[in-house]
């Protein structure tokens, strides 16, 4: 199992603990990552501004992976969506691929349509598999109650993801959590959006969207939130304090990236998983396993 690891913009600058734990756990599970330093922004943030630019940024990133003969593994759900969508569109539409290559040619690149894209959680779920994950667990997290936040682009549009999970009744993250021995917490707002995409347009609405889920997860007595997207993590992590101050609420709800949860269950040291760098320190949680 070898992939080009696509870090995107947010992870390598603001979510180093996600990157650390992803690399550490992947290594343990036999997933090899190649780094391609020329990767840029995936193209997602400019999709709503200038479609052609977004398409070319995504195609250029795909071309870079193709040069190395590798498929892409993503950590960010928004990167996953735009890269997957572009990879599928260019594999199916020869005229568009030709047009894209006329532009890529001007910067010395070419794409022939062979690269496939998978989110890290989907790689765990499909390539590694739940049985192998259960076997890798050395320290089951029996004492943990964990609420998964699926976010949007990890699942939707479901047609570009071969319907690997159901957009209305998603299960993959809960199953991945359960495979570590932890209890997967069910809650009513599980599928809702974090609001991150409109933080810069209307902070008030965006924070209320995050708050509604924090309220629900807290009411369901979860010990932590399981995340697979760095931008969702900005909302539930960095903005959790802001929400507490603004609405006079109190959560102190640690956020964990799935590879951190899995890594803990595999017996990997908390420091190697970057837990001390998480925005909400999971002290009470760690005390449960020490």
């Amino acid at each position, binding site marked *: 199992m070898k992939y080009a690891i696509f*870090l995107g*913009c*947010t992870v*390598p*600058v*603001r979510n*180093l603990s996600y*990157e*650390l734990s992803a*690399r550490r756990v992947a290594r343990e599970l036999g997933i090899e990552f190649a*780094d391609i*330093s*020329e990767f*840029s*922004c995936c193209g997602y*943030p*400019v*999709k*709503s*501004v*200038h*479609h*052609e*630019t977004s*398409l*070319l*940024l995504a195609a*250029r990133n795909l071309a870079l992976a193709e040069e190395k003969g590798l498929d892409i593994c993503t950590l960010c759900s928004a990167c996953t969506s735009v890269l997957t969508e572009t990879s599928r569109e260019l594999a199916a539409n020869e005229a568009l691929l030709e047009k894209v290559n006329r*532009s890529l040619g*001007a*910067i010395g*690149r070419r794409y022939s349509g062979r690269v496939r894209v998978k989110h890290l959680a989907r790689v765990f779920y499909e390539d590694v598999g739940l049985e192998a994950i259960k076997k890798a667990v050395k320290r089951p997290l029996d004492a943990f109650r964990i609420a998964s936040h699926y976010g*949007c*682009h990890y699942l*939707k*549009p*479901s047609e570009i993801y071969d319907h690997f999970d159901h*957009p*209305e009744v998603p299960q993959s993250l809960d199953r991945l959590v359960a495979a570590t021995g932890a209890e997967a917490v069910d809650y009513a707002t599980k*599928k*809702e*959006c974090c*609001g*991150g*995409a*409109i933080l*810069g*347009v*209307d902070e008030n*609405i*965006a924070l*209320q*969207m995050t708050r509604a889920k924090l309220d629900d997860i807290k009411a369901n007595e979860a010990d932590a939130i399981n995340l697979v997207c760095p931008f969702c993590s900005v909302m539930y992590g960095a903005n959790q304090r802001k929400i507490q101050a603004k609405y006079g609420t109190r959560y102190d709800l640690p956020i964990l990236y799935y590879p951190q949860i899995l890594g803990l269950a595999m017996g990997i040291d908390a420091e190697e998983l*970057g837990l001390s760098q998480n925005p909400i320190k999971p002290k009470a949680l760690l005390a449960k396993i020490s």
Partner: protein
Amino acid sequence: MESGTCAEKDHVVVTVLDPKFKYEIASEPGGENIKYCFQCGTCTSGCPVSELDSKYNPRRIIRMAILGMRERVLASDFIWLCSTCYTCYERCPQDVRITEVMNALKNMAVKAGYIHPAFRAQAELIGGHGRLYEVDEFTNEKRAELGLPTLPGSSPEVAEIYGMTGLASLLSGKGA
């Protein structure tokens, strides 16, 4: 007077609507299915943004667009409020692909000179550094300390793409 409205009461006036607007949207990437909308409201009823603030209402935006209220739609703040969660996209019985229609409308608004400042800032950062967040020396030092590979602080190829597609000119206000 804005196109598509009556000066006194803001009512829709048929004679000033632009009947070609919907065809223009349908010719934009993502806008292809807009005319399939039969106004059932499934999009708005499941929209997490509409639930909190009624100024964002996808059914209304699509109706306005089909009616031809060009300026009212393109110059609006509300088209920028879609959180791109794809809930409506998944549920729409007519496969209007609403999230993508909103992207098409935002692309058209940008070309008409109405880019939202938050999206302008993002697009400018990516054009400048190749990424949304600049990888500066401090970041690379921290990455190296943690044993993570360092990353380049700029991407000349991304800047070239911005030049090629006309986005660089659009952002500098010189037109595409």
